[in-house]
């Protein structure tokens, strides 16, 4: 399918909040050109894992390899610098700003002290065109006037604007209707097909089966299994999510019990 070495690899990472150990020796491999679905029940540690990757809550211990090289990610900017971008469930868009402003939020292009609106607007249009986005009327629309799907598109476009290599999507379809879910899933597939590594968090098994190449399942802070999705079916994933095991796959019984 694509290169054999993972672009991003975690080995035995741990994370605790006070006395609660949220992540226990978690391994994860993410490959360019593939969609890796990260699944797990509420409280399994999906968000914590993603936030660790993004540098929001740095891991307590364990190895973090990017492009085969160990890196230390202690803040979001360090992750951004490597080309890791996260699209959060709440999208983190500013309603009072227009599409261009949101795409470049925090990383505005300037000539001297003056914002370079023209360069930003052109790059915004190029990026949206590159994603085959045709649903936006104008890139100077305020985000408050956009639909849920359009907002998701803007958030994803922001993630790929920066020559990113890994894009993490947190429940991108959770709040969307049928047609808009379809649009966003197509967009996710296009991102991977164009060579990006995509991590998608989802509770929707249909979405997971449709769009992902790999499934990584967290169970109570443990990585139950990371498997190619064509080797799994719907019910096996559900079993992994709910019990941490499915036949040969999954955690040792004692780990599950512990």
């Amino acid at each position, binding site marked *: 399918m694509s290169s054999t070495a993972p672009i991003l690899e975690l080995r035995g990472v741990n994370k605790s909040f006070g006395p609660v150990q949220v992540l226990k020796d978690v391994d994860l491999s993410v490959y360019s050109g593939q969609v890796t679905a990260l699944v797990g029940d509420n409280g399994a540690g999906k968000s914590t894992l993603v936030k660790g990757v993004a540098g*929001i809550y740095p891991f307590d211990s364990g190895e973090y390899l990017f492009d085969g090289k160990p890196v230390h990610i202690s803040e*979001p*900017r360090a992750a*951004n610098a490597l080309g890791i971008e*996260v699209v*959060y469930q*709440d*999208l*983190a*868009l*500013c*309603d*009072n*700003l227009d599409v261009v*402003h949101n795409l470049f*939020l*925090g*990383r*505005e292009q*300037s000539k001297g*002290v*003056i*914002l370079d609106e*023209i360069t930003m*607007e*052109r790059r915004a*249009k*190029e*990026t*949206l*065109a*590159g*994603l*085959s*986005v*045709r649903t*936006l*009327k*104008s*890139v*100077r*629309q*305020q985000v*408050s*006037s956009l639909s849920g799907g359009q907002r998701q598109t803007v958030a994803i476009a922001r993630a*790929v*604007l*920066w*020559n*990113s290599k890994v894009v993490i999507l947190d429940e991108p379809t959770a709040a969307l209707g049928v047609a808009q879910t379809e649009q966003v899933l197509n967009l996710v597939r*296009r*991102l991977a097909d*164009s*060579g*990006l590594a995509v991590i998608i968090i989802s509770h929707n098994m249909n979405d997971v089966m449709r769009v992902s190449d790999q499934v990584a399942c967290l169970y109570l802070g443990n990585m139950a299994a990371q498997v190619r999705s064509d080797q799994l079916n719907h019910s096996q994933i559900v079993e992994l999510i709910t019990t941490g095991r499915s036949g040969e796959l999954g955690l040792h019984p004692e780990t599950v019990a512990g």
Partner: protein
Amino acid sequence: MSIQTTDTDIPEAGDTAGIGQALRDYWGRVKGGEVGSMPAVLGLIALVVLFSVLQGNIFFTALNFANLLNQGTAIIVLAMGLVFVLLLGEIDLSAGFAAGTCAAVLGVTLTNQGWPWPLALAAALATGLVIGLVLGVLVARLGIPSFVVTLAAFLGLQGVMLLIIGEGGTIPIQNEFLLAIMNNNMPVWAGWLLWLVIVLGYAGTSMRAIQNRRKFGLASSATSVWAAKVGALAVLLGIGVYVLNMERQIVRVGREACVVVGPPNEPVGCVPVIQGVPWAVLVVLVLLVVLTFVLGRTSYGRHIYAVGGNTEAARRAGIGVSGIKISCFMVCSFMAAIAGVLLASRDNSVSPTTGGAQTLLFAVGAAVIGGTSLFGGRGRVIDAVIGGLVVAVIANGLPLVTQQSGIQYVVTGGVLLVAASVDAISRKRTSAG
């Protein structure tokens, strides 16, 4: 990014074919909840018409027009600073007494200590920055609601001011330069030069922006729209300068310069020439241009809007949220310091009431009436000017109509409530859209 580009492009909705289309676009935005300064401009026109009908012979005169600007200047400057804090969705209730405190520092250092005026002025402005720094740190780092922090500062600064001045005391300001800001006018030619510079400057920069956008094939407003805007600006400012350049002295004997006033060539006495644009107007214009530039054209300004619109999104985008907050409180108190200097200049003195009474409420009212949202994220510096003019017209016109101060308070409070309602309703509309 290696995503293959397709030859599809986003259709342009922003291309305005002409003035008609531009007006339709604007109306569409208004219906969508982005009312901006429109209610304030309409209100300003309505109030001017109303007072002119009721008391035209006093209200609608060159003298009163100048008075009105004089009364409104400090409020406008204070409101400009408040816009920065309101953009964050915060409030600064202490700005009025921050102005008073800074004026007190000016008075004490200048008059009592005999410092040279630039040093005294610098001390007053620095005091503003320090006040803002303290407020900002308490709000941004400790996370105390700004309402409480600035309410405490409202009381505290009132006390600090009394301590600086000494109870019951009034400190006169005698420095000519400082007094000139609020009491002297530009020569007539300078007023017209200022008019020319503003109109040409606006026409030039906006034309360059349009041409730049066209060069890169981006949507831009039509030349006819540009011409209409420049024309409207030239006419409005022209009327203002023309009126302010008229002789507005009512016959009174005394002072140095002499002119002949009265029926044709009938000398009735020596009176000072009072004509020209007040220097204070230049101060307001400079602040307006500088702050508008900062908010609209720099990434710092963009970050202020981002923090006000969605603090969490701003934080995740790598924007230093607490730094932005602290700096906005500092801008606000710094502007309050300038307002304090203007008040001292206007009153020729500093007293414990400087910056007190309704000063702050008028300033908050000015910003909100002008179209700055109390919920954060929406507002411009020009709002403070437009809203400040509305407040000044009410404060100036109402006493001409009724002597009852009760009615004056009720009306002013009512106007603020109407403005806040417009703000709340338009916010509902935009979030519903």
